[in-house]
């Protein structure tokens, strides 16, 4: 449709007369008490983006402090708080809920052709728990912050004078938010699939979200009890982790990593799901090796529970335990590599469109490969002794978490943005920003690989002169990264008001969420589906009149018309 000068109320083209989910119900309360998965997803998106901004500010402060050896802009105590808050906010408020709760909530029922998740009230409860947890975290920041590192290791966390209790209670509550989301997704995927969508005809994002949900449900309770014990330790002195009272501080590390190692797969698995969707659509080809990608998600989820000990190679574990954990850690590389090779094979001989989401896919493949392979350095016992607690670990972690999860998240945002808000963003600015993020990221963190391998310890306030140039390069990289994000925020917000109205299917994807309007009505669909192959891109053709894609045979996937609105 020709670019229509947007009307005063900004109503998008292509809506049914009942309006869309954004316009049904007005006012703050209609959002806060909504049971609509799309609105909850959007609220989550706003909330976690705000957390990302907050965590990003802490990161920039940390990087700025490290511009010069010694004091630059803050004291050592403040620095300890800054890197702790950066980690805690980014991990618990942003990246764990990130893809499942924001994008997953929006997309998952749509991909199933369903009207909502199975348990909408629980979904809303999950969001409220997130809010309450965030309030606890913010209160903790206000009343003195935390300086333990995001890992809250005992005995320091039980003796430091900072606001550990409110922060850990916040994380405890956030854990329940995560459990409820995961539980809801498992039930929804089991019980709400449409006619014809067998397990191996699900879009791969759903496999990613499903395996994520398994980890959320099975691992998060352990974090809950661990943090509760930490709170009881500080408040009552129960002594479970306190050697002077007969306890064992290393037990805390075991408990903590029994959750927190699977938690990194909570972060990466849905990201891999997004990549699986995007790589097929933007290569114009059926996904290669569907079953391998699906099973590898489940395999990663299972392996994730068996590798936590690799965080304690230097904490006095026995040699045989270390060897077992090391071997298991290596085995995670197999399903991860299976995925990467299948994505590459999907791209092979495809007609690749370098739209903004695809740029993020390419970034992901490049950065995740580096992040994954450096993980093997750390999983090897001998090199880990050298690299343990250095910037090498920091760089590895960020290459996987940022280069993997955040990049895929951004790809997903750009991919589903037209569906969520009914508007197209500026493709040109999208590409500029993707480039800046890629360059800034590599400058920030590749330098840290170099520093780490030369022995720069992580979390240090001060450093020797020799590291100055690399630290400064890293800091400059972080500024470029920030610039990329500001541009992104700018054109995305701009698109909400001035963007070209989005067609129903702007990218030519065959999954069901593109069968409804952009943005969808409150009830999602007015028909029931017989799902076919989610990667059968041949069933679509481009219609230049609407600048979008339509099905060659629209009736082929319709089971019945009508139903509840």
């Amino acid at each position, binding site marked *: 449709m020709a670019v229509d000068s947007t009307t005063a109320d900004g109503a998008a083209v292509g809506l049914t007369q009942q309006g869309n989910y954004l316009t049904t*119900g007005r006012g703050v*309360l209609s959002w806060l*008490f*909504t*049971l*609509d998965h799309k609105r909850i997803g959007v609220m989550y998106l706003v909330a976690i983006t705000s957390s990302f901004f907050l965590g990003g500010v802490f990161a920039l402060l940390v990087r700025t402090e490290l511009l010069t050896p010694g004091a630059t802009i803050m004291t050592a105590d403040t620095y300890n708080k800054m890197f702790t808050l950066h980690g805690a906010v980014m991990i618990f408020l942003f990246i764990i809920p990130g893809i499942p709760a924001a994008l997953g909530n929006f997309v998952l*029922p749509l991909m199933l052709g*369903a*009207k*909502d*998740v*199975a*348990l*909408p*009230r*629980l979904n809303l409860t999950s969001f409220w728990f997130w809010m309450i947890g965030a309030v606890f975290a913010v209160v903790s920041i206000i009343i003195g912050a935390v300086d333990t590192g995001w890992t809250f290791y005992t005995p320091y966390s039980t003796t430091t004078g900072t606001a550990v209790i409110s922060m850990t209670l916040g994380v405890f509550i956030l854990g329940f938010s995560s*459990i409820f989301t995961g*539980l*809801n997704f*498992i*039930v*929804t995927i*089991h*019980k*709400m699939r449409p006619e014809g969508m067998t397990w191996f005809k699900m879009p791969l994002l759903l496999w990613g979200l499903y395996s994520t949900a398994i980890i959320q*449900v*099975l691992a*998060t*309770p*352990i974090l*809950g*009890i*661990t943090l*509760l*014990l930490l709170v*009881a330790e500080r408040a*009552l*002195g*129960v*002594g*479970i982790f*306190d*050697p*002077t*009272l*007969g*306890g*064992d501080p290393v*037990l805390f590390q075991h*408990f903590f990593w029994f959750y927190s190692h699977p938690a990194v797969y909570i972060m990466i698995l849905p990201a891999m799901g997004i990549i699986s969707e995007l790589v097929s659509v933007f290569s114009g080809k059926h996904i290669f090796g569907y079953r391998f990608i699906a099973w590898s998600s489940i395999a990663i989820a299972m392996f994730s529970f068996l590798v936590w000990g690799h965080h304690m190679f230097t904490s006095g574990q026995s040699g045989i335990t270390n060897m077992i954990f090391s071997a298991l850690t290596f085995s995670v590389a197999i399903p991860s590599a299976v995925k990467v090779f299948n994505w590459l094979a999907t791209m092979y001989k495809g007609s690749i469109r370098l739209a903004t989401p695809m740029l993020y896919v390419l970034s992901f493949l490049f950065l995740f490969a580096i992040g994954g392979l450096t993980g093997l350095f750390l999983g090897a016992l001998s090199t880990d002794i050298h690299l343990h607690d250095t910037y090498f670990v920091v760089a590895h972690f960020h290459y996987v978490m940022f280069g993997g999860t955040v990049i895929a998240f951004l790809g997903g945002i750009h991919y589903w943005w037209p569906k969520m808000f009914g508007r197209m963003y500026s493709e040109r600015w999208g590409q500029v920003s993707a480039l800046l993020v890629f360059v800034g990221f590599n400058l920030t963190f590749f330098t840290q690989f170099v520093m780490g391998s030369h022995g720069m310890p992580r979390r240090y306030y001060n450093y020797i002169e020799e590291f100055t140039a690399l630290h400064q390069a890293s800091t400059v990289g972080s500024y470029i990264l920030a610039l990329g994000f500001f541009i992104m925020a700018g054109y995305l917000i701009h698109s909400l008001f001035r963007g070209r109205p989005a067609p129903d299917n702007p990218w030519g994807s065959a999954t069901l969420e593109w069968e409804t309007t952009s943005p969808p009505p409150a*009830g999602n669909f007015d028909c029931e589906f017989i799902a076919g192959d989610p990667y059968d891109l041949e069933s679509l053709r481009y219609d230049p009149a609407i600048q979008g894609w339509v099905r060659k045979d629209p009736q082929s996937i319709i089971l019945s018309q009508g139903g*509840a*609105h």
Partner: protein
Amino acid sequence: MASQHHDDGHDPNLAHHFESPDQQRQASKLGMWLFLATEILFFGGLFVAYTVYRGNHPEVFIFGAHFLDTALGALNTVVLIFSSFTIAWAVRAAQLKQIKLLKWLIVATMLCAFVFLGVKYVEYSAKWKHGLLWAGSYNPHVDHDESFEVVEHETEIDAPGGEVEIEETDEVQHVAEGEIVEPVATEIVTEPIPAPADPDRSTIAPAARGPEGLAGPAPATDQDAIPVEPANAMVFFSIYFLMTGLHGIHVLGGIGAMLWLLKCLRRGDFDGGHFTKVDMVALYWHVVDIIWIYLFLLLYLID
């Protein structure tokens, strides 16, 4: 809670996004089972802590268990098992639309929950009186009003600061030593060893038994004798209070859930034979019950 009501003129108990009541019931049930799995794992952390410390220091647990009242624990076990029966019957009553019976069964289950908490209160207050608390507040002392009591040792534990002086250095024999003196006139005063010179030094005592673990001969204990207090006996009470406390909170949660059921019942939710809500609460209550049975076995019945 204000919530959008999608009323399409269908069965008011069927949410708009489900196709059939059966699909809805199955979804709720799967969700509940998953939630119960998280509950088990939540307690799992404490069971692991129990396993680790009991594996390293079995003497601490054998010693500590003597201070728990097995009779009261058994009473509570019976009460909870009975309440599991009443709530299971309540599900049946809901299925058969026997609303009045349903109401009394829910009330009976709640009463059992209150009896359980009452008995727990009696147990806790006895521990409190004798200072048998978690490690930071562990300060065992004799209550002279009682005729039967344990020997008081000169174990000095300065509460929350955490400086602990342990007079026992020879761990192997004291488990077998088993002695009891009653009533409490005499006090065995053993020579305290001087506090470690370095205040930061860990005071964890070495394991009572070496790596042979369970393969070694079990210490011969007199049936009713309370052995001499081993080092770090307070760990047992930390674990006891954490496990039973967390369980107690879950009992309170169960009472809340049953109050909610009564509210639903008054509103007439169950008139049409919609038993899902009762079913969910019953499942939860059974898990609370099962966890207690394990706690009873692992904490009270160690010998």
